[in-house]
């Protein structure tokens, strides 16, 4: 492994990857925090992302994008580099509606990695990880 090579994963530099263009830029996702085996992204609440006009809770699309990203980034964190991977499957349980006006934080964790597969899980919450709005499990194929 080469130190400081182009592909080396530095959590604090994630925003350049996330917010430069495309769907992630539309959603305004950015780095929030990380630990040894988890990483969090934050997505600000936007009127254009809501799914339910009466409650103002987010549509499932932005939530799935946030969690696809948070769990995928958790694998980069574990592998230490921006290595290619694709999502094989993703399951989201919607535990409760999200809160109008509150940024949503997506936490991803890679709890097992084999030579070809990364197994990940995560939650999304606004204020406390003890009160999650969604729970996610997914697998990624490592390329």
């Amino acid at each position, binding site marked *: 492994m080469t130190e400081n090579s182009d592909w080396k994963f530095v959590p604090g530099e994630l925003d350049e990857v996330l917010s430069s*263009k*495309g*769907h*992630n830029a*539309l959603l305004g996702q950015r780095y929030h925090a990380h630990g040894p085996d988890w990483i969090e992204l934050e997505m600000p609440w936007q*009127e*254009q*992302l*809501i*799914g*339910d*006009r009466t409650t103002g809770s*987010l*549509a*499932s*699309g*932005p939530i*799935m*994008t*946030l969690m*696809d*990203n948070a769990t995928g980034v958790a694998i980069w964190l574990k592998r230490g580099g921006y290595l290619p991977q*694709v*999502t*094989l*499957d*993703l*399951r*989201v*349980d*919607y535990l409760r509606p999200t809160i109008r006006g509150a940024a949503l934080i997506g936490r991803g964790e890679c709890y097992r990695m084999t030579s070809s597969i990364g197994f990940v899980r995560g939650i999304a919450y606004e204020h406390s990880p003890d009160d999650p709005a969604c729970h996610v499990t997914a697998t990624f194929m490592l390329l």
Partner: protein
Amino acid sequence: MQQIEVTLPPYADTIGAALDSWNGTMPVLAIDYSENICGNPGMFHGGAVSALLEMAAVAALEADLRSKQSAARLTTLNSTIEFMRPAGETRTFASAMIIRSGRRFANMQAWLWQESRDKPVATALVNILIQPEAPAP
């Protein structure tokens, strides 16, 4: 064939998802490729693919309930998405079928394709809670 309106969330407008056509009684949603839904360069973001699948599932159940005049509030309980092929820069379609629909709960299967319906880009199992609509005040 019935031509019932389907209501999509504001987020659908944001990413350009809309009703394309009807396949029998089932709505077909579609979305054109744009920068707004790009993940890896030249490809749909998996989140946008997931969103269209889930919207297709909800729209299909809503259309079915409306055809039976049983308006209800629908809440997605969970979605499991299987990604099978990359989705490139072309118009993309999604539709869904009811596996089982009861009084309180429906199991839906949705699939998403580009050139041919026989080559799904992704499929989804979507479980939806059905709650009676609150009476008008």
